């Protein structure tokens, strides 16, 4: 039953999302071509009116494209959580909860669907950046169509961020980093579920509005605590760790850094599990569809 639920949820979002994806990818191709033309024009010794217009056009286009990227993410977000709200807490909820499915399966299917689409959204943004890096660099004698060296440089630059990790530790830190980002996404999804559920349980009218209000408030508190933990205490911890490891063996140094990142990652996952449990508990006992 979980697969069926996931399939229907997946289809609902896919029906709209492909439009967002193709528009953004198409938009990034046009933007990259415009950027390529702009770079080529700016390389010329004389600046003509046409080239100046091209630069202005490119600037306007990029502004609109960035707005479209943000809007695409917002639309995906709204699609996902509107489905969650309407299926559980609107009139449709009566039907949903009469299905011969356990409530935990319903929640799990929603969570899986939302995670899939949010990861897809992140991959879509990365694909747009990739298109820019591939198409925008002007042709050279060695690369008459696509200059792949820029992309290679960007990838090298990205891995250089982990340069201090040591050769053998690079894959470890990349996996840990990916797990951490996945944990943040899971935490955020569980937090939205929890806030919408609390809003629906607490408010008799305007449940969605109450959910959004609670999410806004909780998010502010969580961001504040997050900034304090990661900004101030995180900085102090990293500084202290550097002090500890100044004369340490390379393996111990890598191990300590990896464990610290794993510790933070586990804390994020634990919080996500806590929010999931609370949401499940509210769905089981205090659901108010009146």
């Amino acid at each position, binding site marked *: 039953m979980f697969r069926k639920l996931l399939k229907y949820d997946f289809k609902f979002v896919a029906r709209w999302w492909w439009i967002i994806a193709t528009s953004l990818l198409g938009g990034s191709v046009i933007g990259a071509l415009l950027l390529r033309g702009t770079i080529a024009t700016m390389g010329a010794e004389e600046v003509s009116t046409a080239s100046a217009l091209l630069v202005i056009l490119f600037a306007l286009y990029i502004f609109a494209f960035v707005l479209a990227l943000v809007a695409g993410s917002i639309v995906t977000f709204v699609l996902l959580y509107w489905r969650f709200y309407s299926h559980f807490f609107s009139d449709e909820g009566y039907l949903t909860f009469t299905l011969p499915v356990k*409530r935990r399966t319903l929640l799990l299917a929603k969570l899986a669907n939302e995670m899939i689409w949010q990861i897809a959204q992140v991959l879509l943004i990365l694909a747009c950046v990739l298109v820019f890096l591939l198409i925008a660099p002007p042709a050279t004698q060695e690369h008459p169509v696509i200059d792949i060296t820029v992309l290679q440089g960007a990838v090298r630059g990205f891995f250089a961020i982990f340069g201090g990790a040591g050769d053998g530790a690079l894959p470890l830190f990349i996996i840990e980093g990916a797990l951490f980002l996945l944990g943040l996404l899971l935490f955020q999804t569980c937090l939205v579920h929890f806030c919408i559920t609390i809003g629906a349980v607490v408010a008799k009218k305007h449940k969605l509005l109450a959910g959004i209000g609670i999410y806004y408030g909780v998010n502010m508190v969580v961001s504040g605590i997050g900034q304090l933990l990661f900004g101030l205490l995180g900085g102090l*911890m990293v500084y202290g760790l550097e*002090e500890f490891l100044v004369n340490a063996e*390379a393996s111990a140094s890598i191990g300590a850094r990896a464990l610290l990142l794993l*510790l933070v990652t586990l804390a994020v996952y634990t919080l996500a599990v806590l929010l999931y*449990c609370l949401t499940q508990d509210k769905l*089981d006992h205090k659901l108010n569809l009146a």
Partner: protein
Amino acid sequence: MRKRLFCIFVCSFLLLAACLGVAAAPSAGADLLGKQDYIEWTLSEDRTTITGNGRSYTYYTSRHLGSMVILPESYYRYANELDFLPPGKEGAYASVQIESARRDAEIIWLSYEGVFFIYVTESGRTHLDFFFNSKAASEYRLIDDNYNQVEMDGDLMTSLNALYQWSQAPTKNYKSTALEGKPQYRVGKMDDHEDFFLACGMIFSLADGYYYLSLVEEELTYSRLYDSEQIYTLYKLDDADAERIGLLRDNLERVRVPVIYEDGIEYEEDLNRFEDDEEGEGAAALLLVLLVLFGLVTPLVPIILGLVMPLSGHLKHPKHWYALAIAGVLWLIVGGVLLILLATV
């Protein structure tokens, strides 16, 4: 009354303008009594010559630069910047600041994309050539990666170099990649003006003692030491030399050097990566406190919650709460392992 007020206002305004003018004049490069000109620098078309200060400085290259550290007792920073691109390199010009050890120096340097480039007058070239090629020096130093430094006896340097002539000295072969992360120190000589340090060898602190690698004997430079995977043969220091190196290591000192700007402003700049030893110890202690709180105490909350909630009896899905307890236990284990690791480092 109005006229008087107007006069007071105008006089105050003029007084304020005069004060501001006097205050701003030195930093703008001119004072009220006479214009102070900063040195104008120009780069030749082939980028191998910088002209300024009534001198002509030419680009200086040497393989020894890879082992050299600029360690003057003060830095002189010129006010006017130079649009610079290293000779033979293609790319964009960048506005860089020119420095030297003192005003009117024969050797100047500038940094482009984090790499130093040296320009010298004829006299400066002779000085550097002599410094790089001479076997003896009046002063030797030991420095660490953070540029903490300590003066070293010349006979210890001689003793270290003698390891390569003494066939009985125990040796150990190490891959460059394995050596890179080990605690290490550079030993070398200072030039006669005590502005430049040239690393002649490396001391590595390994599990069974100190080992020496001569950059001179191996024809290596410090900057290329870890460029590719190579196998280096290290010579073990005898007990007496190891003890002397240990003492030097304990006496490494943080160095603060005055930076003198062309307009006369002077301040001290730290060559060290870490600000203060006490501050570092404080940060390490704070890390332990935070780790105990974050790694050992905080995970108890989800563990207790995950174990207690299913016992409350009103839950339909107690297993979810066990997942919370399991996550908390994993968190606690990782926190504990991290603390043990840090305690043993």
